[in-house]
């Protein structure tokens, strides 16, 4: 039986804090003396966004939410600066705001093929850094092929909604946990950590789980 600590992460592809939080979490895991088993789960921040929304996140916030363009620019500038601090070169001038349901289905397809973590990273980078579209099936199939997945099969499963039920199950689990925002990390099905925390926080939680497991083992041995 594996002693790996299971960490379930709810996240959306177009969530800037999810990518930043991912990097911080990965820093913690890199410094952790133990095995960590990561699984990503789907969370749709804006399920009503059209796949072919004609505009950027700047346009989306300004037009649909009434935030002034100056305020949006200030917000995006801050996020971009924080992203840079963890090595991510966000390019909001070329981001395509879209609907991410198909991207989530693709992440589940990748999981079924043992490539979930690679697909998640590729999608986040595609959206925030590379200016790629992550809502259309053909674009998603291109991204999947770039990490070695079967492009034709991806087109087929996304067209057939093969993994839609898995996305919905993730969303249902998020609701059951009371998750309203992402990123959200669940350690060992016990501890919840909300947001793009510092790496030290993630590291502390991992150590806490180790200590509790050791304590539980010593109690059961008595």
């Amino acid at each position: 039986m594996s002693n790996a600590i299971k960490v379930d992460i709810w996240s959306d592809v177009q969530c800037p804090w999810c990518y930043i939080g991912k990097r911080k979490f990965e820093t913690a895991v890199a410094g952790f003396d133990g095995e960590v088993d990561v699984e990503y789960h789907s969370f749709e921040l804006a399920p009503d966004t059209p796949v072919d929304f004609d505009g950027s996140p700047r346009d989306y916030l300004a037009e649909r939410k009434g935030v002034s363009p100056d305020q949006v620019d200030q917000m995006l500038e801050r996020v971009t600066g924080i992203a840079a601090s963890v090595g991510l070169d966000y390019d909001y001038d070329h981001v395509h705001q879209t609907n991410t349901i198909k991207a989530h289905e693709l992440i589940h397809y990748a999981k079924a093929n043992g490539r979930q973590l690679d697909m998640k990273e590729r999608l986040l980078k595609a959206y925030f850094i590379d200016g790629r579209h992550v809502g259309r099936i053909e674009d998603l199939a291109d991204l999947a092929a770039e990490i070695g997945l079967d492009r034709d099969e991806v087109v087929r499963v996304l067209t057939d909604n093969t993994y839609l039920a898995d996305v919905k199950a993730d969303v249902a689990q998020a609701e059951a946990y009371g998750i309203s925002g992402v990123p959200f990390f669940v350690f060992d099905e016990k501890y919840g950590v909300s947001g793009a925390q510092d790496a030290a926080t993630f590291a502390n939680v991992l150590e806490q789980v180790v200590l509790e497991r050791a304590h539980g083992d010593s109690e059961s041995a008595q």
Partner: protein
Amino acid sequence: MTDPVTSPLTMVGDSTAAVCDGDFCEIPDHREQAIVNRRVDDDRI
């Protein structure tokens, strides 16, 4: 499909860490941002 796990979680960490909630992403520790967030929340349907 299995039923969702409903056991409560113990929340740990900084409760003000940055999250995206709905289709808007908060930026903590900036009061002017909080004002913008409230405007968006008020506008939420």
